């Protein structure tokens, strides 16, 4: 008997699956079921569809007469089905997606392990590269597909039990729109197939279904427009299938962003609670109620900073600004934060590498901009610290920079009655002594104010102004598409802060040269992330550097971690050749694609024009007119912003 069951298991499973699908689809559009039931059913059906497509791919790659074309077709079917559940799967378990399903095709260090273990990447992105190679490795594919089948089946089993609320659906849908705008249309997860625009259509399908299901419950403009706009977005993708010429600016401005707002309007109109009604509410990296993901209110600085906005905030910020420009923080009273972070240069210093203490050479790296620097989860080019407050703690204690310590700074500041008054007024729990945490919090609060998302580009995208030249608009499309800049400099920060969750800052291995000599190029010796954190000292982090923002790039020359390039033309040339690989470096762990981008001179010029439209330091550049007084006349001669 047992044997019988075993032998018939396969057919039974198939029968069960088809009954399941039948039942689920039968329920989908029945008027008796609620929107939530229908959409829950859609998700479960979608999970099953991915599994079915995956096992079809498995059969294809395992077929004795391995057929590349059939394999590619089967793989694209997997992608199509995956994209239709991506919004919810990413929402409910983005860790598992990253670990097993659609993570970047790069090795990682095992999380939270007592030993240093390197995990090789697996999943759709790895397959995307493998399958679209000229001659795919059949044996390797079998293994990789088999593993994905196993992993997906396990995740599916867990996800089928996932309880879904209407709030979850709306949040997942809105995050998916950010994902499409910042990753989908850039080709981020289709390194081999280049199938991203088709993927985006599939990613919009479940959102469209959701919009249709909710339409009867909605009123007014929201009801009229949600489905229409989504349909139009999908049609726009279908009508413009060429990756290189696809107009991303129009797509985001005219379709994705309006839909992003409409989904929010719909949610509120329906009385569905938002994340702010839950215990997790205030901890979001973004403002969920924002209308526009290029809005200056979209990202939430409070999430990233150690400093919470409080009623005392203006006082704390004002105090932090004094400290930022006050050289009393350094051991020789001559250097301030502003020494290397000049507001006129978007808080950089124009030097290749910043000048060191006592003019003894330079520090190791180029001074990065502080504008929007709060939007990161790691600091320094080697990503060694987690908070901006730790970043300047390293500056304070470094012998090459402030060459001092918090106890020394506290002792000095406590001599100043004026500083004591400022601290007392700023901190309601002031203990009578100026201490590390209040100094740190004040500087952190000031840095948190250095945010700016009102550049010409932002205003154009939000429809507030129409000042961008056709060259800049073309530059944006290239940046987000053919030139592949935005697959590392992610919108809307155009830095390595990964959307749509904005919880992780990335670093990349580019192969930056030591000098501009292209005849005898020499790899820059800086080991980058390999020399940062002890627990990240693995070979693939050698020469890896934080992806900094390209916002305000007009003001922040020279460029790269070592300031090797004085002009953006040089930077573009470097990338156009494929980075270090293009210069002839044999850098096994280069994460920048080594292929030439084949950008024409005019395309490179357009990209630069676009980047130059990202300038905004309005309201951020004024220095204090005086600094708090000390009893020492000598100290009172100190210069605002430091002597050098």
């Amino acid at each position, binding site marked *: 008997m047992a044997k019988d069951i075993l032998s018939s298991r396969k057919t039974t499973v198939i029968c069960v699956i088809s009954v399941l699908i039948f039942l689920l689809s039968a329920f989908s559009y029945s008027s008796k079921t*609620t929107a939530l039931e229908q959409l829950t059913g859609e998700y479960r059906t979608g999970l099953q569809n991915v599994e079915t497509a995956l096992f079809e791919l498995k059969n294809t790659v395992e077929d004795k007469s391995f057929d590349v074309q059939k394999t590619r077709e089967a793989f694209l079917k997997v992608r199509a089905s995956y994209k239709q559940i991506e919004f919810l799967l990413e929402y409910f378990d983005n860790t598992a997606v990253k670990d097993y399903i659609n993570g970047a095709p790069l090795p990682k260090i095992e999380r939270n392990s007592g030993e240093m273990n390197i995990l090789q990447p697996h999943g759709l992105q790895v397959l995307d590269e493998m399958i679209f190679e000229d001659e795919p490795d059949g044996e390797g594919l079998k293994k990789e597909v088999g593993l994905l089948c196993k992993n997906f089946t396990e995740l599916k089993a867990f996800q089928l039990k996932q309880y879904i609320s209407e709030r979850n659906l709306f949040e997942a849908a809105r995050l998916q729109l950010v994902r499409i705008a910042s990753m989908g249309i850039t080709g981020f997860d289709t390194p081999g197939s280049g199938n991203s625009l088709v993927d985006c259509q599939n990613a919009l399908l479940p959102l469209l279904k959701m919009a249709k299901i909710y339409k009867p419950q909605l009123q007014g403009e929201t009801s009229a427009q949600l489905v229409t706009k989504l349909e139009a977005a999908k049609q726009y993708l279908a009508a413009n299938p060429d990756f290189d010429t696809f107009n991303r600016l129009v797509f985001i401005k005219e379709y994705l962003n309006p839909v992003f707002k409409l989904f929010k309007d719909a949610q509120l109109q329906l009385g569905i609670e938002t994340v702010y009604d839950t215990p997790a509410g205030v901890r979001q990296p973004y403002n969920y109620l924002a209308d526009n993901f290029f809005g200056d209110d979209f990202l939430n600085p409070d999430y990233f900073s150690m400093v919470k906005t409080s009623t005392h905030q203006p006082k704390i910020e004002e105090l932090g600004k004094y400290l930022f420009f006050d050289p009393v923080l350094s051991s020789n009273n001559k250097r301030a934060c502003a020494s290397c972070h000049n507001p006129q240069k978007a808080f950089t210093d124009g030097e290749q*590498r910043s000048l060191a203490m006592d003019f003894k050479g330079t520090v190791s790296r180029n001074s990065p901009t502080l504008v929007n620097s709060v939007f990161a989860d790691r600091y320094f080019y080697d990503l060694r610290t987690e908070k901006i407050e730790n970043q300047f703690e390293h500056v304070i204690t470094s012998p090459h920079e402030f060459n001092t310590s918090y106890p020394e700074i506290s002792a000095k500041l406590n001599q100043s009655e004026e500083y004591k008054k400022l601290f007392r007024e700023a901190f309601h729990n002031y203990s009578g002594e100026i201490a590390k945490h209040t100094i740190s919090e004040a500087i952190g609060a000031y840095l948190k104010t250095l945010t700016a998302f009102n550049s010409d580009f932002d205003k154009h995208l939000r429809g507030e102004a129409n000042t961008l030249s056709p060259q800049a608009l073309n530059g944006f499309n290239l940046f987000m598409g053919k030139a592949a800049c935005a697959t590392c400099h992610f919108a809307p920060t155009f830095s390595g802060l990964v959307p749509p969750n904005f919880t992780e800052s990335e670093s990349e291995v580019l192969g930056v040269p030591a000098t501009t000599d292209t005849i005898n190029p020499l790899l820059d010796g*800086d080991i980058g992330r390999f020399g940062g954190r002890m627990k990240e000292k693995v070979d693939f982090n050698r020469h890896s550097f934080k992806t900094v923002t390209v916002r305000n790039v007009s003001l922040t020359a020279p460029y790269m971690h070592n300031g090797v390039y004085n002009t953006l033309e040089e930077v573009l040339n470097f990338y156009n050749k494929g980075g270090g690989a293009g210069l002839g470096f044999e850098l096994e762990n280069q994460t920048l694609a080594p292929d030439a981008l084949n950008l024409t001179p005019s395309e490179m010029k357009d990209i630069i024009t676009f980047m130059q439209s990202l300038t905004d330091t309005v309201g951020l550049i004024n220095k204090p007119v005086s600094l708090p007084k000390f009893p020492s006349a000598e100290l009172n001669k100190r210069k605002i912003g430091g002597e050098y």
Partner: protein
Amino acid sequence: MKKLYVLAAFVAAGFATANAQFKFPIEATANFSATSVVLPQSPLKSQVLFIGGVDSVQTVGSNGQPNGFALAKEWHDFLGFTPDTAVGTQDLGWLSINHEMVWNDDKIGDGGGMTSFKIRRNPNGSISIVNQTLPDGRTGKFFNVDFKNTVGETGMNCAGISAPNGRIWTAEEWFRTNNASIFAGSASPLGGSGAGVRDTADWVISTTIPGDFNGKTIKKYQNFNYMVEIDPRTAKAIRKQYNWGRGGWEGGIVMPDNKTVYLGIDESPGPWVKFVANTAGDFTQGNLYAWKADGTWVQLVNDKFDSIANLSVNAFAKGAAIFNRNEWVAYSPIDGKVYWTETGRDGFNFTANVAAGASMSPHWAKAYKTRNPSFTGTDQAAIDSVMAGKFIDYYGRVLVYDPATGKVDIYLEGGPFTPTSLPVNGGYPAKHLSNPDGLGVMTINGRQFMLICEDLNGRSFGRTPAENQASGGEICELWMLDMTIKNPTINDLVRIAATPKGAEVTGVMPSPDGKTLFFNCQHPAPTHPFPFNHSLTMAVTGWENIVNTWVGVEDIKNSDVFTIYPNPVSRELHLNKACDIAIYEISGKRVKVLRNVEVVDVTDLAAGTYIVMNDKGETQKLIVE
């Protein structure tokens, strides 16, 4: 065909139960019920004792430098308690705090480290730090434990041993394999951050432990990864325990005989190890063993450096049983058994280790079968599946060893357990335990409780609620389990604390009288106001007042009448049955909507009167004190 039919019916029935979602109005004007439930102020009071990176520690001068002070290191982990037994003392004793980091510091010393300080209980039950002057002349409240001038630097001080008589060992996990792996590189244009242990010159062992250790020259990295005894009273390290072996040490316990030590190694695979001293209290001489799957202990050579240099490899070659990241160890004086956490790991394959001589611990059969209830194979088949990597150990567990029988068993299997049927309208299980790490046993008013700290290996597969998935950062919880419960499950857990997002709760250590619980909150995320954005040592006092509040809820649970009742200990609101609820201010303004919950964390509700509405529109008044 019958089977199919049943399954199909099941699917349909499942859908019928998926209710329309109740819409809670943003402003409510209903006639609210007059039934009031009071959430009293918790009898527990929490207090911050020691803030990493902010409080100063007194340091020992070296290289001709005088004693000094520096801001304490962070990343608090293990917490040891040493009672003050002096006649007539007003003081409770000393606390020893591990710093689980590898950093460079001229005054404190490179690598990780420890801080010790003395505490007193005030008449109102609160704790204060006692000023001390140590024999080496240091005066102050917090003292850096000197490793640099004694036994050599330590790294990643994670857990350790807090013996009943107050002797303290610190453990160095994160197994190092070369000098490059203890130093990031000098701060220079080449880009090193200077982090780690800068002095990588060869180390000459100086020890009284018998064997070939004393006078032996070893590579610097080989002087890491030991259990290291310290004296918190003088804030000095005493000895690296070379005779216990070199490994990714985590926790341990000294048994009441003062001879036997059980030890956890945080490796995957990792062995279960014990040391037995020849003479009570003298841990420099004795034998070292690893546990085998057949319940016996195999002796390991422990007087030769080459043999102890990589303990696990030798243990497995001799047939030691495989565990998956053993962490903290605790002892129950009531049943005489040893408990420890096996934290789990997302992926592994032990086939090669078994081929090299290791055995699979028998508890893997139970672990596999608990996760795969439909599996009908033999225990051996289940164990083989685990060995071959067909079991992803997302959640980990608490294990128990009975010295009387030599048997290892699962005490509490971790995880959220969602029903196996499909589909369900289940919600995120209120009770869940993932990747247990810190462990302690606390006796309150004669009743014994287990304290379990999470240290999540990730968020996937329900280790944290969906709300926390996208916004990053794990929320680790501190759970309590009444050890009088027979065959406990995660449903018996009571939540004591949730640390700030991104933090790990660890270092649980009750005072011997059960009135105070000390614990550490490690590396919290930057999104919390001072001091909760730093590593903290906390004291929670008032435990003697609370145990009775947990009993007698079974009747409410069995009732169908909408009922809310508070757990003042954890500031949680419990519902008689899982349902959707909204909480309104008395003005009618909606402040919270929670779907499918049985327990609601209301720590963020200010004192005042609220209305709780369920998904039938029924209300209860809640008074938060």
